């Protein structure tokens, strides 16, 4: 049983214009009854209602800053919604910013281990997967080296191999389809496809409209934090493309 439900979800970031404050400022400014650092409110998401169930393949499209990644993070439980309700049933795996969160002084093997543990593996379940992950990454003897000597491409390979070695019920993917070199990309595509086939619910963000309409059956078009349109993949992608083209024409 896998289910995601969002009900009138809104998310407002309160951003300090001057970064973090210090105790010193807090006390000094506090005496003069002024805000230590002005707070700006950013409405990242507004009034989002969604219901995703068994077998759903959802794509999210929209311009930069439309709230796509934020929505994914709300779904994954990283950001708590400011308003509204979020219900999730099922084991979630999320693939975003996968190259972050490596320990640079540890070897590839160690990174495989603790990253997998973070995704909920145990020593026993990892034993079977370790070889599989190493093989998929094609990094061979490099795995004995500390990560600080890895190139970005190698890091992406490793991250992708670890992140996709799980069998989640709910899979949340943010733009990871462009991983590594060309040969690895084909392999990665195939692996994603395989994951898509097995996961019960899939939510993905991509700027690649072609793969979105190929992989998803429903698409959500986000615009300034609101759902602008939702419906069958082809229909929404066409509407979005049409809109983008007309904006482009206006600019020209």
């Amino acid at each position, binding site marked *: 049983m896998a289910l995601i439900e969002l009900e009138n979800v809104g998310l407002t970031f309160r951003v300090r214009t001057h970064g973090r404050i210090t105790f010193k400022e807090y006390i000094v400014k506090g005496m003069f009854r002024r805000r230590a650092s002005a707070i700006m409110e950013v409405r990242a998401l507004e009034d989002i209602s969604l219901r995703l169930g068994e077998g759903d393949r959802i794509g999210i499209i929209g311009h930069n800053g439309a709230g796509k990644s934020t929505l994914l993070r709300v779904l994954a439980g990283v950001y708590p919604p400011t308003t509204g309700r979020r219900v999730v049933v099922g084991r979630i795996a999320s693939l975003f910013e996968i190259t972050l969160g490596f320990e640079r002084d540890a070897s590839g093997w*160690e990174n495989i281990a603790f990253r997998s543990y973070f995704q909920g593996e145990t020593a026993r379940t990892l034993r079977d997967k370790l070889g599989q992950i190493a093989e998929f990454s094609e990094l061979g003897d490099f795995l004995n080296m500390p990560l600080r000597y890895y190139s970005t491409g190698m890091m992406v390979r490793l991250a992708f191999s670890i992140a996709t070695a799980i069998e989640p019920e709910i899979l949340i993917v943010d733009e990871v389809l462009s991983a590594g070199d060309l040969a690895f990309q084909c392999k990665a595509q195939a692996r994603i496809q395989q994951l898509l086939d097995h996961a019960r619910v899939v939510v993905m963000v991509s700027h690649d409209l072609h793969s979105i309409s190929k992989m998803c059956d429903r698409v959500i078009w986000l615009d300034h934090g609101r759902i602008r349109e939702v419906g069958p993949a082809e229909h929404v992608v066409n509407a979005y493309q049409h809109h983008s083209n007309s904006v482009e024409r206006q600019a020209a």
Partner: protein
Amino acid sequence: MVAYLAGIWRLRYFWTSLVRIDLRNRYRQSALGIGWSLLHPILMTTVLCVVFCPVFGTDYRQFAPFLLTGLAFWNFVVSTATQGCQCFFQGEPYIRQQSAPLAIYPLRTVLGTAIHGLAALAVVLVFTWSIHGFGNVPALFSLLPTLALMFLLGWSLALCCGLTNVIFQDTQHLVEVLFQILFYLTPIMYPARMLAERRVEWLLKFNPLAVFIELLRVPILEGRLPPLGAYCTAVGVVAAFLAIASLALVRLERRLIFYL
């Protein structure tokens, strides 16, 4: 509460492997390994003995083990607090990827410093035995509850420092200054009874850390079981720290990400 602890337990492989990596990195930096980082309390003790044994008119055979015990505790607390300040920034990439109980990040810090503290304690024991002969074993067993209490104290301290540091960026600096001051207010270099003799007993009464030093010193240096009252005070102090930490955690568990 139980569900929260279960969540921490479920991720045990994750944080234990992080601790293992931390320790290896820390001790691999130098050829002497763990001995290198134990050099600090030993050198400090040597220097202080050279200066203060003549000043206080005490024998170094009394003063050195006395000082080493105090420093072992103090270094544990200070390093837990200062490193704890960074614990959530250290764990930021993980916090941003997946929602996991936040308490695992200060746990990573305190496990590291605790292992280091145990090594320092081993130095104390070996040194004391080499001077005064093998201690009273049953009394030494009384250290186990003390160590457990110290661990909980460290965990909640690291958590509080970490949370505060996320919101106020000068926390670590203030913590360092505060502990520098506290060092002189805590009976580390001088015995607690000196305060009583000079009618500043209240300094001891309001110092939540002093009782832990007593709990360490009595069994190691005097070979006696510490008084039950000391345990009660220590449990009270730890409970208070845990309560503050839990309250802070309840308030910030979900919202911390917005401050990072």
